[in-house]
C-alpha cells in the first residue's frame, strides 16, 4: 500500500495549477517512501490531453475518467469513484485546498469514515502515520496533527508545494465512474468564470489588493492597471470594499474570504485589520501603500510607502512597466 493518489483538478477543460501541485506533492512522498504516483484526471471527453503534463510532473500512472457528465464538477460520482479506488489500497491521497478540493475530500472522507486534514501547509510521512500542520484560529495558530489512518487524506494549501517537473511514464489508464454519473442527486448546472478577475487569486504569483483607501469603485482601475503591468497579477479586495459592492465577493481576501500566499502582495489603501491579515500574512513579500503611517498594515509589510494611493499607483504602474520592459 505505498502508492499515492493525487487528484488533479480541472475546470472547464483546463488543468489548474493546483492539479500540478498535488502531483508534485505525491511525487515527493513516493520518492521518499517508494511506490507510485497515480494522478486522477476527470472531465468531459478530451480531458486526457492533460495526461502528458501530469506525467512530466511525476505521475507514473494517469487515471482518466472521461464522460460528458463530468464536464461540470460531479461531486457525488467523483467522490464515489475516488472512495472505491482508494479502498483498493493507497497510502495517501492529495487534494487541493480549493473550493472543489475541499468539497471533494470531505465527501471522500465521509464515505470512507476517515478523518482528513484540510488546508495542510506541511506534511511528513513517518511509517504508518502522517504528521501535518493545519492552520486554525483564522491562521493565528498552527495545529499539528498525526493522521493514523490509511489512506491519509489531505488537502494541500495553494503554494505549500510548488509544481516541479520530474518526468515519469504517466501511462494513461481509463477508469469508469463507480456510480451512474447521470443519476446523481447533486448536480452542478453551470460553471462560469467570475466577471473581472482574469487570473485566479489562488494561482496568481502577484496580487494587487485594494481597500477603502481607494475612495471609490472607479479608482480600482488604478489597481487593475498595476496588475496588468505585472502581467501575472490578480486583483483582490478587503471586505469593506466587497460589502460596498465595489468588487465581487469572490475577490475578498481574509478570514472570511480567500486565503492567499502569493510571492508578492501589494496592499493599496488597506488598513490591515486582523481579519484581512488572516488571509494574506503568509505572502512572501508584502508591500503596503497607506497615507496613515500608523496603519497596522505597515507592521505586516516588508516595504511600506506612506502616501496617497491615488498618487502613488500610477507612478508605480509606470515603473513596473519599465522594469518589465527592461527585463
Amino acid at each position, binding site marked *: 500500500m505505498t502508492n499515492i493518489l493525487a487528484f488533479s483538478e480541472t475546470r472547464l477543460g483546463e488543468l489548474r495549477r493546483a492539479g500540478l501541485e498535488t502531483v508534485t506533492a505525491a511525487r515527493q512522498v513516493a520518492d521518499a517512501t517508494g511506490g507510485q504516483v497515480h494522478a486522477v484526471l476527470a472531465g468531459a471527453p478530451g480531458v486526457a490531453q492533460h495526461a502528458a503534463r501530469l506525467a512530466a510532473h511525476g505521475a507514473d500512472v494517469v487515471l482518466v475518467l472521461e464522460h460528458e457528465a463530468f464536464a461540470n464538477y460531479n461531486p457525488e460520482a467523483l467522490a464515489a469513484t475516488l472512495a472505491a479506488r482508494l479502498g483498493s489500497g493507497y497510502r495517501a491521497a492529495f487534494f487541493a485546498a480549493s473550493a472543489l478540493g475541499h468539497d471533494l475530500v470531505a465527501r471522500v472522507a465521509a464515505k470512507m469514515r476517515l*478523518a482528513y486534514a484540510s488546508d495542510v501547509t506541511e506534511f511528513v510521512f513517518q511509517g504508518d502515520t502522517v504528521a501535518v500542520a493545519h492552520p486554525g484560529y483564522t491562521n493565528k495558530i498552527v495545529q499539528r496533527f498525526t493522521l493514523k489512518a490509511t489512506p491519509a487524506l489531505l488537502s494541500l494549501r495553494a503554494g505549500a508545494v510548488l509544481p516541479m517537473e520530474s518526468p515519469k511514464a504517466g501511462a494513461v489508464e481509463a477508469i469508469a465512474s463507480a456510480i451512474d454519473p447521470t443519476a446523481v442527486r447533486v448536480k452542478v448546472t453551470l460553471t462560469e468564470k467570475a466577471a473581472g478577475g482574469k487570473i485566479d487569486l489562488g494561482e496568481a504569483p502577484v496580487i494587487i489588493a485594494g481597500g477603502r483607501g481607494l475612495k471609490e469603485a472607479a479608482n480600482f482601475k488604478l489597481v487593475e492597471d498595476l496588475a496588468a503591468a505585472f502581467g501575472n497579477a490578480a486583483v483582490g479586495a478587503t471586505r469593506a470594499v466587497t460589502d460596498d459592492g465595489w468588487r465581487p465577493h469572490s475577490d475578498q481576501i481574509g478570514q472570511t474570504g480567500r486565503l492567499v500566499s502569493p510571492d508578492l502582495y501589494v496592499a493599496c489603501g488597506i488598513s490591515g485589520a486582523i481579519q484581512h491579515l488572516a488571509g494574506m500574512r503568509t505572502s512572501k513579500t508584502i508591500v503596503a501603500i497607506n497615507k496613515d503611517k500608523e496603519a497596522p498594515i505597515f507592521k505586516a509589510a516588508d516595504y511600506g510607502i506612506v502616501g496617497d494611493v491615488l498618487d502613488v499607483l500610477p507612478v508605480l504602474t509606470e515603473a513596473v512597466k519599465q522594469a518589465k520592459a527592461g527585463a
Partner: protein
Amino acid sequence: MYLSLALSLGDFTVKLAVCIKRVPDMEGRFKIAPSGTGIDEAGLKYDMSDFDGYAAEVAIQITEKLGAGEVTVISIGPDVVQETLRKALSMGAHRAVQLKHDAPVSDGLAIATALAAELKDGGYDLVLCGRMAVDTQNRSTGAFVAELLGVPLISAISQLNVEGGVVKARRELEGAYELVECPLPAVVTIDEGIARARYPSLKGIMAAKKKPLEVKPAQLGAITYSLDKMELPAERAAGRIIGEGKDAVPELVRLLKEEAKVL
C-alpha cells in the same frame, strides 16, 4: 438579496436545523495553554462561529419569509454553549438542543456522529452548518453529517433558493462560480456573502428566555485523530517604511527587483 424563497406553502411545515459551534473571538491575541494542545482561555470572549451565525440567519430568514416553519439550533459542548444557543434563539430560532460534552473535541467525524444521531429522526427538510468552524478550520463536519444521514450535500454556498422541494445554490470558486442543485431533504454548509447575522433585539432577547432549550448527552463517535501540538506561527520580521509618496517608488522597485526578487 442573496436568499430567495419560493417554498410552496400549505401542506407542510418546513423544519430547519442549524449546527452551531461556540468559538473564541478571533480579534484577540492567542496564547498557547501549558498543555501545548489548547489555547489559554483566560480573558477570551466567546461567540458562535461566524459561518454558523450566517447559517442561523439564513434559516431564520426562511421561516420569516414563509411565515411558518421551525428552526432548531444544536450545539455540542459544555454548559457554556447554552449562552450561544440562547443568542441564536434571541435572533429568532425557535428551539435549541445542547448535546452535552465537557471535554474539547477536534475530531469532525466524532462531532458529526453526535449531530447525526440527534438529527436523524427530527424530520428536518434542511440542515445548515457553517462552511468551517473558525477555530479548528476542519471543514469536514457538514459532509460527515450529510453522509451519516444519507442525504445530499451542497457545501460552501453563497446563495440559496429553495423551490418546490429543490435546493438551488451558488458556490464561489477561485475566480469563478458554479450553480448547484439537489432535492430536499439536504445538508448545506454556508459561506460568507449569503446573509450577515443580525444583532438580537431586546424583544428577541426577552422572547428567547421562554424558548425551549433541551439538554441531552452527546453520543460522540470514536475519535479518529488527535491534536499533538499547537504553535503560534513564526512572526514576520517587522517591515520598514521606505519613503513617502510617489518619490519612494524608484526605491520600492529597486527593492522588489534586487532584494525580494519578485520583479
